[in-house]
C-alpha cells in the first residue's frame, strides 16, 4: 500500500525522534553523575573562585576586549577609507597592512609585540604594560578584519546618498561622516558583533606575556584554578562567564537590528 507524502514525512520524523531519545537515555545511563559533579562542578572550588573570578578575571577580559575593539574599530575605519581613497599610495599601504594582519595568527602578533619589540628597539616595551599589549595586538588584528567589513558596508550604501548630500553643498568628508558612514554601520552591525565576540575570546592570548595576579583574565584565571585544585571546575566556571558576556551582547545587537529595520 502506497503512503501519501505527508504520512511518509510523519513516519520518518517519528523515527528520528526515537533514535535521538535512545541516544540520550544511553548517555544518561552510562554517566556516573557523582564523579561528573566532583570533577566539573565542585562547589568548594566554585566558592573559592569567588569573588576574584568576577572582580579581577571577568573585569579584565571585558576591559581588554573593549580597549582592543575600540582601537580596532578606529583603525579599521581609517584603513577602509584609505582602501577607498583615490590616492594610490594610501590604497597600497592599507591593502598591505590588511593582508599582513589578517594572515598572521593573533598569537604570533601577541608574541611579536611582547618579545619582538624589546629586541627590535633595545630597552623599549610597548607602552601601557599588559593593557597596552592587548589593546595593540587585538586592535591590529581586529582592525585588519573590520577594515574589509567597513569598506564593504560603505560601498553598499547607494551612490545616490553621496550625490544627494553633495548636491546640498556638503563636502565629501561631511557627507561621509553624516550620511554614508552611519548607514554603512547599520548594514555591517552583524559582522561587527561577530568580530567583537571573536576578540573577546582572543583576549585570552595575552597569557603569553606572563600575567601578574591582578592582570589575569578569565582563561588564565581558570587554568590557575585548575592547576591548584587538580579539578576541571575552574574551566567550567570561566567558560560559563564567557557566555555571560557574549550572549547578552548578541541579544542587544539583535534588538538594535530590529530597531534599524523599523526605520527602513
Amino acid at each position, binding site marked *: 500500500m502506497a503512503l501519501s507524502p505527508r504520512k511518509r514525512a510523519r513516519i520518518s520524523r517519528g523515527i528520528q525522534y526515537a533514535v535521538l531519545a535512545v541516544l540520550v537515555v544511553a548517555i544518561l545511563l552510562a554517566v556516573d553523575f557523582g564523579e561528573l559533579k566532583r570533577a566539573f562542578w565542585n562547589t568548594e572550588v566554585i566558592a573559592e573562585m569567588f569573588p576574584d573570578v568576577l572582580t579581577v578575571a571577568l573585569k579584565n577580559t571585558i576591559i581588554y576586549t573593549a580597549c582592543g575593539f575600540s582601537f580596532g574599530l578606529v583603525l579599521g575605519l581609517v584603513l577602509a577609507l584609505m582602501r577607498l581613497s583615490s590616492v594610490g599610495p594610501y590604497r597600497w599601504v592599507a591593502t598591505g597592512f590588511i593582508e599582513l594582519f589578517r594572515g598572521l595568527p593573533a598569537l604570533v602578533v601577541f608574541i611579536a609585540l611582547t618579545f619582538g619589540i624589546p629586541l627590535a628597539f633595545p630597552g623599549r616595551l610597548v607602552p601601557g604594560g599588559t593593557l597596552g599589549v592587548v589593546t595593540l595586538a587585538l586592535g591590529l588584528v581586529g582592525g585588519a578584519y573590520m577594515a574589509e567589513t567597513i569598506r564593504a558596508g560603505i560601498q553598499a550604501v*547607494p551612490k545616490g*546618498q553621496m*550625490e*544627494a548630500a553633495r*548636491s546640498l*553643498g*556638503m563636502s565629501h568628508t*561631511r557627507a561621509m561622516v553624516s550620511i554614508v558612514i552611519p548607514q554603512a554601520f547599520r548594514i555591517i552591525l552583524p559582522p561587527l558583533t561577530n568580530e567583537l565576540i571573536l576578540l573577546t575570546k582572543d583576549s585570552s592570548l595575552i597569557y603569553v606575556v606572563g600575567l601578574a595576579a591582578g592582570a589575569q583574565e578569565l582563561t588564565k584565571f581558570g587554568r590557575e584554578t585548575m592547576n591548584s585544585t587538580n579539578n576541571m571546575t575552574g574551566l567550567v566556571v570561566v567558560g560559563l562567564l564567557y557566555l555571560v558576556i557574549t550572549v547578552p551582547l548578541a541579544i542587544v545587537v539583535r534588538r538594535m537590528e530590529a530597531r*534599524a529595520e523599523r526605520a527602513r
Partner: protein
Amino acid sequence: MMTEPAIDRSAAAIDVQDLHKYFGDNEVLKGIDFHVDQGQVVCVVGPSGSGKSTLLRCVNRLEEPTSGRIVVEGVEITDPDVDVDKVRSRIGMVFQQFNLFPHLTVLRNLTIAQQRVRRRSKDEAVEVARTNLAKVGLADREDAYPAHLSGGQQQRVAIARALSMSPDMMLFDEPTSALDPELVGDVLDVMRDLASEGMTMMVVTHEMGFAREVGHKLVFMDGGVIVEEGDPRKVLADPQHERTQAFLSKVL
C-alpha cells in the same frame, strides 16, 4: 586658494557654452549651448540616452564636464578653483529616486544641511524646515522616517529638503518618473506652485502637459545635441524638426 564666487543675480541663471562630455570614448554631450534666465522654467525633453540628465547633472557638477563653460549667476563653475560646495548649496537638486537619507527623520533630512552647510542655528533650521514641509503639504509627517512615506510623499519631502537651503534655482531630474501614476499629480502641483512663485527651474521630464502649461521654454535633445528649442506651446503643437516630430508622435 578657493576663489569667492561673486554672485551676479542680474546675469543669466544658467549659461552653458559649447559643453562636451565624454564617458570613456562615448561622447554623450556634443557641444551644448543653452541658457536659463532668472525666473524661467525650462523643460528638457528627449528620448532616453539623449544626454538630458547628463546636461542637468553638469550644471551642479555632479558630472564633470569634459570641456566647455558653465556659468551660474555670473560664476564660472567649470573653473577648477571655484568652491564647488558653495555653488551647489545655492542650486537645489531633486532626483528621480528621491535619495532621502533613510536613517534620518523627515525633519532631520531637512535640517542637517542647513546646520552643517548653511551654519544656521537649530531653531532657525527647524523653522525653515517646517515652513517648507507645510508648503509641500506634509507638515504632519516631520517625525516619520522616509521608508514610511509613499513615493509621492518622499519626492515632496525631497523638494522641501532642497528648498530649505534657500536655493536661487532648482534642478529636477525626472522627478515623477519613479512614481505610481496616481501620485504624479501631487508632485507636479508642488512644482507648479514653485514656478508661480518665480523660482528658476530646469526640469528634465516626460510630462508634456506640465511643460506646456508651466514651462517658459522647451528644449528637445537627441543624440547629445539640442535639436530644437522654443515656446513649449509652439514646439509641442508644431515641431519644426523631423526628429522632434517623431519623438512627440510617440509620447503625446
